Each structure stands twice: as structure tokens, then as C-alpha cells.
């Protein structure tokens, strides 16, 4: 699996907010690679730099030093315009809430990145419907966001994050505004999309949701202090049963 090319690579990433007395090191030398089919959860206490990491990975913020490589493209060198194009084509974002544009239906929301990219409205809609259908959300296509539950909105947002050729989802506390069960359904969907080949980075402070990831990265004071490795089998339980 790791033989594949990573979808997202962060190399020696640092980010300093402010300067002088108010200088804050949000990130210190982060190295991370996310492969296709992998869901990586980033955990850490408040202020550990989780969200900054995600915004930099998606090109919404620029690192002070280091490189961000998305699908072979070094986005730290890209212009604002190129970054926008990259977000249209390669990176999907899911935020905590209000992810959808209230003026657009679910299908139109999903079709938005494609339309912004210049695809014809009809073609974009076909792609959007396909994406929604794949995630079992076809029945929501013509609903407006205020006619959907929070969980439905988040799932539509995931559909949008992965419409077209995009295969990198950056999710910032996507379950933060949801109850436990609904949040789980959102994560189950994210998990299944990653199993189907997408790469995902999930920022959360809830271990329960982080546990859905293949790999959990622990962040403290802007640095990765630890991470779980991907287990090869259901070692824990099978071991226990065998022992018994």
C-alpha cells in the first residue's frame, strides 16, 4: 500500500503566527504523508496546531517554511489563483458545520466545484448525482440545505469534497456539531470513501471518531509526538480469544 505515491505530503512544515513578542509557533517541522485509501486522524489538545495543519494542507494558509505536496504539485509555490484551481480539482474540504451554500440544492452544492471549474451545468449535475448516488444520498439531490438534517448536510459535504477527480478530503471536526450516532454515520461514510481509494485527513478531538482512522497522529505544541501504526489484522481481539 505504501508503495503507492502519497496523495498529500507535508515536509518539514512550520508556521509562525505574528512576530517578535507575540510570535506563536503553530507548527514545528511537521512531516506527514497520506496515501490513497488511507484515513489519517490528527489529534491533540486545543492549540496544538491541528486546524492550522489542515488549512495549510489545503492551501488556505501558507506555511512559514517547508513544503506541501498534493498529487505531485508543490502548492507552497502556487499563486492564489492556482491554489483556488487546486481546491477545485484536487482537494475537498469538510468543516464543522454550515458546509453547504444555502442558496444551492444538494446536487448544485456538489456540482459547484465542477461548475466553477468551467464544466457545463448539465455535465456537472450528472457528476454530482453520481457522487450522491454512490454515497446513498440520491434522494437528497434536490433539497436545499435548510431542508436537510445536520448529518445529511455533512454527508453531502463529503460528497462534494470527493466529486470529480478529487481524492483528498480534509475534514476539520466534521462531527463537532452532531450527536454521537449521526457523527458516526458521517465518519462511516468517510471511512467507506477512503476504503474506496480516497485519502482523508481528519482533525478531531474526540478519540471515538479518531478511532475510525487507519492511523492516528498525535500533535502537541505544533509537532507530531506519536502515531499509531496501521495494524495488519484484528490482532487484539483474535489474540484475546485465542488466549482464552
Amino acid at each position, binding site marked *: 500500500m505504501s508503495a503507492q505515491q502519497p496523495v498529500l505530503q507535508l515536509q518539514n512544515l512550520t508556521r509562525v503566527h505574528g512576530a517578535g513578542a507575540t510570535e506563536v509557533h503553530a507548527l514545528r517541522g511537521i512531516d506527514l504523508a497520506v496515501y490513497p485509501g488511507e484515513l489519517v486522524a490528527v489529534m491533540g489538545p486545543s492549540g496544538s496546531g491541528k486546524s492550522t495543519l489542515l488549512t495549510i494542507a489545503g492551501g488556505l494558509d501558507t506555511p512559514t517554511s517547508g513544503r506541501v505536496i498534493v498529487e505531485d504539485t508543490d502548492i507552497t509555490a502556487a499563486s492564489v489563483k492556482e491554489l483556488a484551481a487546486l481546491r477545485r480539482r484536487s482537494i475537498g474540504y469538510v468543516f464543522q458545520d454550515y458546509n453547504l451554500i444555502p442558496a444551492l440544492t444538494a446536487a448544485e452544492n456538489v456540482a459547484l466545484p465542477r461548475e466553477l471549474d468551467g464544466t457545463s451545468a448539465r455535465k456537472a449535475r450528472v457528476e454530482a448525482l453520481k457522487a450522491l448516488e454512490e454515497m446513498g444520498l440520491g434522494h437528497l439531490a434536490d433539497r436545499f440545505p435548510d431542508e436537510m438534517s445536520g448529518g445529511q448536510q455533512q454527508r453531502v459535504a463529503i460528497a462534494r469534497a470527493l466529486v470529480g477527480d478529487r481524492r483528498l478530503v480534509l475534514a476539520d471536526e466534521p462531527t463537532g456539531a452532531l450527536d454521537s450516532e449521526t457523527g458516526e454515520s458521517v465518519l462511516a461514510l468517510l471511512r467507506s470513501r477512503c476504503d474506496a481509494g480516497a485519502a482523508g485527513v481528519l482533525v478531531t478531538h474526540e*478519540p*471515538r471518531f479518531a478511532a475510525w482512522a487507519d492511523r492516528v497522529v498525535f500533535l*502537541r505544541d505544533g509537532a507530531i509526538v506519536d502515531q499509531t501504526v496501521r495494524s495488519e489484522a484484528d*490482532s487484539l481481539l483474535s489474540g484475546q*480469544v485465542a*488466549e482464552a
Partner: protein
Amino acid sequence: MSIRHGLLALLERGPRYGSQLRTEFESRTGSTWPLNVGQVYTTLSRLERDGMVAQGGEDAAGHALYAITDSGRTELRTWFGKPVDRTSPARDELAIKLAMAVGAPSVDIRDVIQSQRRHTVKAMQDYTRLKAQALVAVESGGARERDDVAWLLVLEQLIFQTEAEARWLDHCESRLIRLSATAANSGSGADAPAPATAPRAEEAAPAEAPKAADRQGTDASPPVAGAR
């Protein structure tokens, strides 16, 4: 959770023999509370002594069948209706370990906590994977649905318990760090160890994992054993 009540609950569905009870119990609880046949029969005889079950014939293969009595049903009702007693928590090795680590000169408490946390989260990941499978099974329906749901509930209980532990670790960490920072205030700054620990923890992680897993396995059983 008590084996006694668990067996009563199984027997309420109909007469069963000893090893059958053990298999069903494990499948219901997802092998997280392994039983040996001896335990089953000891418990059954105690229940019989208390008049809650009665021996009732044999099946075709010659196994002695046990059936639940009326007083057994009453006991079962009472048990379901009564909250689980939380007044005497089980002693936890982890709590003791952390308490000892505070102020121990040769130990970085952060490392202790982090390695425990990695282990805990890893366990949660495993549970979650199993849960995902169970979810698929439940949603696809089928003959074993009832058992799958039970299995799912057990898994989720484990997940939430583990999560509680993870959260407790988070809390401990910030609390202990603050305390040790105040303690070490006269000496070096509190910030100093932070960057240094990061790489070390990472290296250590793979090596520690199996050992921790073992401990997790043994840690999980005491509640079962101590239920009665």
C-alpha cells in the same frame, strides 16, 4: 456484569446445557469476557442451590439441561431494573502507575501517558474496525441479527470505556504537566522537555505496542472475574 445474571438471561429463552451456555455467552459478549466451562457449572449449581434454576431432563445427545424457575425470573427482572453499582470502582493499575510516576525523577510522565494513549487509541481503532464490520452485518440483516446487535452493543461499550480512558489520559496529562511545571519551576523551564520527547516517543511506539496489548487483555478481565 455478572455471569450469574447473564446465564439466567440466556436460560429465559429456553432450557440449555452447560457448554451451550458458555458458547452463547461468549458470542453475545463478543469474546470480551471469556468463560471457562468450570465457571459456568459452578455458577449453575449455585443458582440451583438458590432455587433459581432447575435441572430438567436431557437433550438427544445426553446433555443435562437447565431451566429457569419463577424465582429465577423474578431475580432476573430485579437485576435488569437495578442500576449497576458504581460505588466501589475497581482498582486500576494505570491510575496507580500514574500516581507513582508523579515526581519520580527518572520518568517523563508525558511519555508514560502518551504510550498509554497510543495503546488506548490503537485498541479503539481495532474495536471500531470490528464495529464497522458488525454495522455492515446488522444493516444487511439476516438470521443472526439479534446476536449481531448484542455484539455491537458490547463493542460500543468497550469503545466508550476506552474513550473515557483516553479522555482521562488527556486530562491527566494537562493536569500533571501543569503540576510538574510548578514543581520544576525553580529548575529548568517547563517548555524544555517538550520538543525533546517527540522523536523519542515515536521511536518507542512500535516496540511497546505488543506488550501493552497484553496488558490490555488482562486488564479487561478483572471486572468479569470480580463481578461476583
